[in-house]
């Protein structure tokens, strides 16, 4: 067995000795299916980065190989990861929208001598499964914790939490609860609803009956979010003054046109808003909008991918194009730069991105489109989820 690995390593090493090489990066994400929009954003972010920074690092040409995984399907993800490493001989794996898909691939990183840059999957625990993982997106804990403080400071003492019954939802529930109780508030009820919920009226009734002053919600983006926000308005919760708090997944820019006026005034905390004001972001948005074709479809996975590419470029620089996963990861530990989302750095210990989290409110922009208007900044937020899991 050991021999096989050695042979493989030798083979891989041989293939990477040539000077002007093509360095392949395998990107796994949902490019079709219900989450195709997120995959499209991956591609937009990557394309934008390469348009702005060229497709060469030193003398090496970077080539991206996309592989489609429409929904969370770890078996498929593992097969794709294996194929990318063994057949396509990629030196970097990136992408991964869903946590299980990322978790399926982490065990083979060491054997394949390939680092993985996660551009979205937001569960804290992934980082523990392999030392070769770096994440440039966010965790649900990271984005859901500050909103608890926001809610408490807004004078809300009793909150009901409503989350979709799956990994990220449960993370959000725990993160909010931890933050809110610590601040001195009370979570009066925690409701978990099935992912496939079409009609939210009964949930709204439940919220009303709970006597809470505010509601904290986490649902996957798409139709469910739309249904939830509409029900919140239609059932008179907004009119009754029950405040709405959520992490920014809920008011993803690509969903805002559909949410329309219903979403106005909703407060969320998140790491990135397309409307973020900075020269870096302007450059990024212009390039990414061009890549995706329709600016309205642009949202946060694009920035995760953009920064992911930045990290990969740095890794390639550090290793001189040679395949050395450990060295590559080592090189980006503590790396800091100004991302379109603001100043960020890679935490050397957790290899997760440290970044500003912004409080935003859905508002109408100057051109009549809906935006997440940033109103407050929580600086240099790490991932509280990893600590909580211990």
């Amino acid at each position, binding site marked *: 067995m050991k021999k096989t690995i050695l042979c493989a390593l030798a083979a891989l090493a041989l293939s990477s000795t040539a000077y002007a090489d093509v360095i392949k990066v395998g990107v796994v994400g949902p490019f079709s299916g219900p989450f195709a929009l997120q995959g499209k954003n991956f591609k937009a972010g990557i394309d934008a980065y390469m348009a702005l920074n060229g497709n060469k690092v030193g003398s090496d040409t970077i080539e991206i190989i996309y592989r489609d995984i429409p929904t969370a399907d770890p078996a498929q993800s593992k097969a794709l990861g294996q194929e990318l490493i063994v057949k396509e001989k990629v030196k970097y794996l990136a992408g991964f929208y869903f946590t299980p898909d990322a978790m399926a691939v982490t065990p083979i990183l060491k054997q394949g001598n390939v680092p993985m840059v996660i551009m979205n999957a937001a569960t804290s625990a992934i980082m523990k499964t392999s030392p070769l993982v770096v994440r440039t997106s966010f965790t649900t804990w990271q984005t859901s914790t500050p909103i608890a403080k926001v809610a408490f400071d807004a004078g809300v003492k009793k909150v009901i939490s409503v989350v979709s019954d799956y990994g990220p939802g449960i993370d959000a529930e725990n993160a909010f609860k931890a933050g809110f109780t610590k601040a001195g508030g009370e979570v009066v009820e925690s409701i978990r609803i099935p992912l496939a919920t079409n009609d939210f009226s009964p949930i709204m009734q439940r919220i009303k009956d709970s006597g809470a002053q505010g509601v904290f919600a986490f649902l996957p983006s798409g139709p469910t979010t739309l249904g939830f926000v*509409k029900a919140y308005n239609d*059932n008179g919760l907004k009119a009754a003054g029950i405040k709405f708090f959520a992490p920014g997944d809920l008011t993803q820019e690509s969903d805002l046109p559909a949410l329309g006026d219903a979403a106005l005034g909703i407060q969320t905390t998140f790491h990135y808003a397309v409307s973020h004001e900075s020269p870096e972001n302007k450059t990024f948005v212009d390039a990414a909008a061009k890549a995706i074709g329709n600016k309205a479809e642009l949202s946060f996975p694009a920035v995760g991918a953009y920064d992911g590419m930045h990290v990969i470029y740095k890794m390639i620089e550090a290793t001189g194009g040679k395949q050395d996963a450990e060295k590559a990861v080592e090189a980006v530990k503590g790396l800091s730069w100004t991302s379109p989302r603001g100043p960020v750095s890679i935490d050397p210990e957790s290899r997760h991105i440290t970044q500003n989290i912004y409080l935003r409110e859905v508002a109408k922009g100057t051109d009549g489109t809906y935006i997440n208007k940033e109103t407050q900044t929580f600086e240099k937020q790490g991932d509280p989820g990893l600590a909580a899991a211990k």
Partner: protein
Amino acid sequence: MQTVFSIAIDALAYGMVLFVISIGLSVTMGLMRVVNLAHGAFAMIGGYIASYVARDLGLGYAVAVIAAVVITIIIAIPIERLLYRRIYGQPELTQVLMTIGITFCIIGIANYAMGPTLKTIPLAEPLRGSVDLGFRTISIHRLFAIICGLAVALGLWFAIEKTSFGVKLRASVDNAAMAAALGVRTEIVYAISFAVAVGLAAFGGVVGAELLPVEPYYALRYMVTFLVVVSVGGAGSIPGALIACLLLGAIDTTGRYLMPEFGEFFFYLAVIAIICVFPRGLAGRVK
């Protein structure tokens, strides 16, 4: 007590929306004996057209509804001619394969043509907002959906039971050869029924869009729900479908209120229980 009323209203509204969207499928499956998994795809096409007409062209909601129904039927005609005709009377599995294939194609095309984002259909002014019922508020659109459901149920019942077309349709369903011998042009009857079913799908897609928003995966996402509702009611039976929708709507709504985390369990356990007691569906005819 207030809560009970409130849940009852929600259940009714949800059930009626389900009914409006699913009843077309009941027509294809019960009367034409086609397991039409592409039903949701036609509803989605209707939704897209309505969204385009109302939002991008800025025409009114009423125009959008009519355009959605008419254009969806026009789109469906060649599909019926070229593809569905080949599977009438074929084994169920063949029908499943064909209609899933059609669904995949429509999803792919919708994704390409309309993009992956959610599309909304701006409501007519009088349908926006909510009304206060005294013990709770409910969106006017929900009430509109309830009325639409009742209108569709009555209209279909009338068309099938009281018109000469209904007589021909029932004859064709009971015994196609006999009906043909009596001078009924079954091909035309089938074509019209298919058009009606597709039109109902489109109508349901538009009216239900507030609850089931239009996006490319609409066609697959809700396929199972439609199939379940129709089968529990007993395919082809309008009262059956109505009862099934109200019953499942009530179970779903109550379940989601009382124990949201077990919402799915309630729904599907109820489905299993109902089918075990009524193996042919609530209104299924015993042979």
